[in-house]
């Protein structure tokens, strides 16, 4: 199956199930309603499970366009997270129920967990093993951020089902997932902003005719493509990514996320600040994904420490550690 064959039915399903109205409804009610039924009955949640374990046998790079679309639509559900959790469980011969699963990679109680308010379970990496927790046991509480589906959670003392922990832990995989979501949303924001710039008229012509805005949009596009390619470098390692590839993906995409979110707002003017306008559905998520599972500074620090421990030239080091 090539990537077009994977993406088309998924895109059709997602377009039917999730639009801005459904995103807002989920954020208002803290529940996914029919969105999750569509996702789970589609079979795509098992995309990353090996064929001999009853899944579709795709790698993270194969489902990249699917997850980028999840990012582009601001889907308010932990789609990629659930795919990853189900694949890790299947490796150990464990079949999970169909509910949405959030990922938690921090080591403090009260950590902010993306999508926790709509998750049934939380897969938590405590540094030694992966523990699958019932969300209801995790003392979830609101972050106080209006519209956000993230929640604070206390995880360290809760018992749950133990899953095998991948060699590099859950953090690298989660960071790569965030980078793919960022890449999808960033691309969507550049396209949306370009359309807006060609439509909004000031001084008697579309604002997109102003050279300064053309250049800002060109820079947004450059950064969106950098985020996409960095995320692809991360995804190439599947569910066993190297630390260096994960760091590259998240460092570059997190930096791009903030830049693109802010440029998109600058270009839209006041309308983009209003709740009613859809821009905020993506820009809020970009900021959340940027900070989830390690910001650009976190990953740059790890990558730099690794780089400084090796005498090779930069080109050789990058080839061996990131492109391997």
């Amino acid at each position, binding site marked *: 199956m090539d990537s077009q064959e994977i993406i088309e039915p998924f895109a059709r399903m997602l377009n039917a199930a999730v639009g801005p109205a459904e995103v807002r409804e989920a954020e208002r009610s803290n529940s996914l309603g029919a969105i999750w039924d569509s996702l789970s009955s589609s079979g795509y949640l098992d995309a990353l499970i090996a064929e001999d374990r009853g899944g579709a046998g795709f790698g993270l790079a194969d489902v990249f366009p699917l997850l980028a679309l999840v990012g582009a639509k601001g889907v308010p559900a932990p789609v990629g997270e659930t795919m990853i959790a189900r694949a890790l469980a299947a490796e150990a011969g464990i079949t999970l129920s169909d509910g949405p699963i959030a990922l938690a990679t921090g080591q403090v109680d009260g950590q902010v967990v993306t999508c926790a308010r709509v998750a049934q379970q939380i897969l938590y990496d405590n540094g030694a093993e992966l523990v699958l927790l019932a969300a209801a046991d995790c003392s979830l509480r609101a972050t106080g951020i209006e519209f956000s589906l993230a929640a604070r959670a206390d995880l360290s003392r809760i018992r749950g089902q133990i899953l095998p922990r991948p060699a590099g832990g859950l953090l690298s995989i989660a960071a790569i997932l965030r980078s793919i979501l960022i890449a999808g949303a960033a*691309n969507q924001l*550049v*396209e949306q902003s*370009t359309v807006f*710039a*060609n439509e909004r008229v000031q001084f008697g012509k579309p604002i*997109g*005719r102003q*050279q300064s*805005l*053309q*250049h800002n*949009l*060109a*820079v947004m*596009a*450059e*950064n*969106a*493509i*950098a985020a*996409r*390619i*960095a995320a*692809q*470098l991360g995804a*190439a390692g599947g569910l066993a990514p190297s630390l260096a590839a994960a*760091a*590259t993906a998240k*460092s*570059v995409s997190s*930096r791009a996320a903030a830049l693109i979110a802010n440029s998109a707002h600058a270009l839209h003017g006041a309308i983009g600040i209003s709740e009613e306008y859809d821009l905020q559905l993506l820009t809020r998520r970009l900021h959340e994904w940027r900070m989830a599972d390690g910001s*650009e*500074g976190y*990953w*740059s*620090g*790890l*990558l*730099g*420490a*690794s*780089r*400084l421990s090796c*005498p090779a*030239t*930069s*080109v*050789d*080091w*990058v080839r061996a550690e*990131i*492109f391997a």
Partner: protein
Amino acid sequence: MFDSLTLASLPAEDDDLRLMVRDLIVNHIKSMPLWRRARSWQGFSADFSKALGRAGLLGLTIPKALGGHERGPFARFVVVEELLSAGAPVAAHWIADRQSAPLIMSCGTEAQRERYIPGICRGEILFCIGMSEPGSGSDLASVRTRAEMVDGGWVVNGQKVWTTNAMHSDYMIALVRTSGTPADRHAGLSQLIIDLKAPGVTIRPIVDLTGDAHFAEVFFEDVRLDGDALIGQEGEGWKQCTAELAFERSGPERIYSSVVLLDAWIQHLQACGRRDAATLVGRLTAELATLRAMSIACTSRLAMGESPVVEASLVKDLGTSFEQELPLVIGDDLAAHPDEPVSDELYQTLMYVTHIAPSFSLRGGTREILRGITARGMGLR
């Protein structure tokens, strides 16, 4: 948005080229000081270029019958990456190998190919690019240098400027007006291969702010050329130039110009045992890796026979921004540690790159022009 720029990998069969390049580099540059290697692709050595030719490392995209190696753009990427990473002096053959040879292959006659290509592949025939003029920089279509058809040959009058390596080159591929006036813009422009030893050609090197003289002004006074000096079609010069610029802008030299400095700084940090710059090192390394992947993605478009004009502009803009940031953040880091000794070599390299860096986003088309091309590709113009 620009979906064709997607992760591509270098074919494994080109990996053998790395060892060949390294063997050659070791002999030629081991005694070169760091600040000379930091000249990157502005470093000139006719001997080194000939040695590359002898080793079969030039003309990698050219058919064997014409002295090339029929290996394609990925092989060229590998060789170029090795050369730039080491800071080898590649300027002599650079322009001929990168853009003149592909232009002659795609637009030239059989006779022109046989005349120029084998020598380019040997690293012996050197070319320069005659686009810019005193009154025509970004607005290239306004060039005033004229060529008139007289007795089946051409007579050229006018002036080019900023011509890299004109004083070392055998030929210039010049964009000239062959009919109409500058008001006709893109119509009436043609490309000519000008023999720089012809009577009436005067070349004056221009010294830059670092004391180097890598470019020159070139004057043409009734320079007579044969009829077959015309390359491609008369009046098609603009279109040919645009295709040529895709080769000029898409290579890894647009991300690696400061990489010798980056490596020298990392070595300095390692020697001092200092870890407080790890986050900066990591960010720069992540950006370098991403730019490399973007550059390979561009190369894969060339390998598919496309002319990735917009993609090349976008990668060049991001790449030169990276190249220009390096000396600034490295300078900040070193000067924030006044108690730490910095070697002469590193200091000279840093200051050389600091001073020359503004040229990175001028040569090959300015930042503003590239962003305009990208914006057009996005449907904004």
